C-alpha cells in the first residue's frame, strides 16, 4: 500500500505544479480536478471514506463548474 501512496503523491505534486504553471486557465482547472481526484483516492487509503465521498461529490463536478463559469466570464488565458 505504501508504494501506491508514493506513486499517487508524486503524481499529485506534479499535477499541482502543472495547475499553477499552465498559461491556459481551462487546462489549469482540469489539472486541479485531477488533483482533487487523487486526494480523494488518498483519503480512501487513509481509511476516511466519509471525507473521500465529500471530496468526490464536491470536486467531481461543482468545483470545476464554478471555476469554469468564472473563467468564461473573464479571460481564457493568463498573460
Amino acid at each position, binding site marked *: 500500500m505504501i508504494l501506491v501512496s508514493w506513486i499517487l503523491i508524486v503524481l499529485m505534486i506534479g499535477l499541482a505544479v502543472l495547475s499553477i504553471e499552465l498559461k491556459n486557465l481551462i487546462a489549469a482547472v482540469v489539472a486541479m480536478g485531477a488533483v482533487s481526484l487523487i486526494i480523494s483516492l488518498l483519503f480512501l487509503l487513509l481509511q476516511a471514506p466519509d471525507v473521500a465521498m465529500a471530496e468526490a*461529490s464536491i470536486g467531481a463536478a461543482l468545483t470545476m463548474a*464554478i471555476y469554469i463559469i468564472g473563467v*468564461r466570464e473573464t479571460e481564457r488565458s493568463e498573460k
Partner: protein
Amino acid sequence: MIRKIVYAIFAAIIVIALVMFFAAYPFGANKMAVGTYYLNHGVAQTGAANIVTSVVLDYRGFDTLGEVSVLFAAAAGVAILFFMLGIGKKERENLTKPNFVVRVGSRIIFPFILLFGTYIFVHGHLTPGGGFQGGSIIASGFLLLYLSYPGTRVNRGGLSIIEGLAGLTFVVLGLWGLFTPTDSFLYNFLPKGLFNTLVSAGILPIIYIAIGFKVASEFAGIVDDMMCEVICRGGEK
C-alpha cells in the same frame, strides 16, 4: 528579484515550522485522546453505527449548526453579488445547443442522481456519507440539468422555502432538547432503536436529512445564480 527571494524565504519558514511541529507526531502512531472515548462510548450513547456521524451531529452538533449558517451566508453572498450589483452585462451570444445524446442521456441519469443523493443522506448514520455529501450530489444533478437543457430555471421561491424549513427543523430539534430533563441543546431525546438498522440513532437521521435538503438547495441556488449570470441575463443591456 529580491522580492521573490523574500517570498521564498517566507514560504520556507512556514514549511520548516510545520515540519518541526509534526516531527513530534509521527505518522501512523496512536495519538488519540478524545477519539478513544468516542469510539468506546459512541455506539452506546448515540446509537449510530458511523462514529463520524455521531461526532458531527451529536458531540459537535452545535459546530455543525454554525457551519450550515456559514454555507447560507456564502450562498446569500453569491446571490446578492450577482443580482443586486450585476454591472456591465455582455451582449447575448449565439450558443450551441446540446446534442441528442446529452439531452436524452441526462434525462435518464437525472432521476438516478436524485435517488442516489437521497440514499446517501438517508443512510448517513449507517454508511459513509450524509447530508453534506448527498446534498452536493443532488446539486450536481441540477448542474447537469442546466448543462443539458439551457434555459431551465429552478423555482427560487421553492428552494428558499425548502432551505428555511430544513434550517427550522434543525433548530427546533435542538431547542426541543432544552425541554427534556437533561436540559441541553441538541439532546438526543428520541429512542435509539435497534442498532445498525435504518430507523435508529434517535434524532440523528432526521437532522442529517434536514442538512441534506439545506445543502442541496443552497448549492442549487449557487449553481442557478452562476449559470443564469451566463445564460439568462445575457440579453439585457
